[in-house]
């Protein structure tokens, strides 16, 4: 053996670097999920147990979830939210696909102007037009109705733009072939283009659903009667109510609103991440 053996140092250093990386990953994990986990653990604690008695509940119970459903119309709130979400998903999927399809096709007058106007409206932050938007909804007689919550977001410009870029990627040869086969515009849209943009359509459905589920400020402006409250508004009442100053119950309510989203996220992860990327076409 004339050549010296490789010294063990690089390997040891690599192992140390890996250990450091995992230590850092775990530290960040605690920061990012710790507060959520703490709320979750609180929601499992028994009625008599001190909330600070150790990290884990000594006798985990689902009692708080039962109690929050009993003392607050949580199911009603959830049903209201799902109604708005169902409307929002349907209208966004259909209308954003239609609009995006038209914008992606060349050869019609006013295409550039329409596109510019749509992009320009992205510049108005909702908060700077919400007072006027409220007046519009009131003028339509939709205050304190779930339709009033849904309507302004029935088809978002961002979703139209997402569908537009998906349809732009469809090769024109395919469209021309469909024309030669005698397919009309609507047939081409439903049979040729929509199947080619399934992924983006899923992103549109997902973001519309999440938007409807998570929205707070607009429902807060529109809804007055607590019977019409969405889940997020209901949670606010729950937190503000003096009758239940019990953090276990508030925690159970928050978790009830969060867990469906977490399940959705783990089931459809790649669409979530795709959605973030496509959101960036905004600018």
């Amino acid at each position, binding site marked *: 053996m004339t050549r010296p053996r490789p010294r063990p140092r690089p390997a040891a250093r690599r192992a140390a670097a890996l250990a450091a990386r995992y230590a850092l990953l775990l530290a960040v994990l605690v920061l990012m999920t710790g*507060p959520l986990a703490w709320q979750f653990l609180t929601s499992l604690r028994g009625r008599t147990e001190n909330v600070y008695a150790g990290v884990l509940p000594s006798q985990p119970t689902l009692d708080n979830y039962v109690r929050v459903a009993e003392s607050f119309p949580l199911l009603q709130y959830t049903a209201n939210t799902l109604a708005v979400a169902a409307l929002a998903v349907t209208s966004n999927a259909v209308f954003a696909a239609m609009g995006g399809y038209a914008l992606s096709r060349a050869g*019609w007058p006013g295409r550039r102007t329409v596109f510019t106007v749509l992009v320009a409206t992205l510049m108005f932050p909702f908060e700077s037009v919400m*007072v006027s938007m409220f*007046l519009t909804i009131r003028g339509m007689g939709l205050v304190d109705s779930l339709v009033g919550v849904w309507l302004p977001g029935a088809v978002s410009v961002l979703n139209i733009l997402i569908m537009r870029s998906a349809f732009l990627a469809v090769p024109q040869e395919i469209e021309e072939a469909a024309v030669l086969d005698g397919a009309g515009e609507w047939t081409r849209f439903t049979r040729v283009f929509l199947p080619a943009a399934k992924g983006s359509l899923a992103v549109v459905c997902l973001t519309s659903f999440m938007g409807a589920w998570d929205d707070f400020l607009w429902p807060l402006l529109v809804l007055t009667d607590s019977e019409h409250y969405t889940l997020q508004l209901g949670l606010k009442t729950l937190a503000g109510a003096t009758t239940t100053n019990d953090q276990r119950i508030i925690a159970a309510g928050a978790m009830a609103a969060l867990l469906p989203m977490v399940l959705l996220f783990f089931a459809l992860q790649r669409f*979530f991440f795709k959605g*973030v990327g496509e959101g960036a076409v905004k*600018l």
Partner: protein
Amino acid sequence: MTGDDRRPAAARAAGAARRPLHRRWWSPYLFLAPGLASVVLFGLWPFANTVVLSFTDARILTGGGFVGLDNYRRALGDPDFWTAAGNSVLYLLVVVPCLVLLPLALAVLVQARVPGIGFFRSAYYTPVIASAVVVGLVWQWVLRSDGLVNTVFLRLRIVSEPVPFLTDSTLLLVSAMLVTVWKGLGYYMVFYLAALGNVPASLHEAAALDGAGPVRRFVHVTVPQVKPMMLLVGTLSAVSALRVFTEVYILGGESGGPGGGARTLPFLIRQVGLGFAGETGYASAISLLLFLLTLAFSLLGRRLARGDEA
């Protein structure tokens, strides 16, 4: 994921424009009708209406008369307006640097292909999928006077009295910033992961051969390569920092901290403009000032991006 996909799409769009198919001129308008109706009704019209109302003394239940620039003059002399505007701008100045830099560090951390990294990426993303209300409640339970942080601090005798995280205006605003940053980390991390994926590995190898350590490689290779993404993240997070409402509302309650000291501009707009005594005219003027502020920061972001390309 972002920068890469756009160019081919644009190239294809150019191809599509080259040979337009014959179609009836009005058929695209039929397809766009719902979208356009929505844009007119809930985009252009409310904006135009906001501009008009801002020059009137309209109230929520009565139409108003033209008052010229009175509302704007009133805003400039209104301490509540200055508090809210100051809070919003301060929010932006604190939150934007955090959200430009920390998610980049996070992305570099989870970029490595080590076992279990997918789990960490997903876990870091969970605050993003939680709604602002849920996140507010979760942090309320951490920061309350009988919350986790204060209990631990008291037990370890770091403090003798609970820290008023949610009952002091300044601390409330800082707490809300913390929540915004916490919720934004995972979101912008995904942006940076996409950008980092486009950094050629050869650049890192060349720098390593030249003897550059990980820190110097980060500063001299990674940062210049992801600079366009940093500008995009900066602009997006600046615009959303000016929109903050729910964090302050859930953490601090309906009044926006003691004496409304932690109110942001959207918070003030809602308080002034809506409710039975809502002064829609004055609120519209504040709305328009918020719009101009937002516009200024997005144009700044765009100008920086353009200067970067040149």
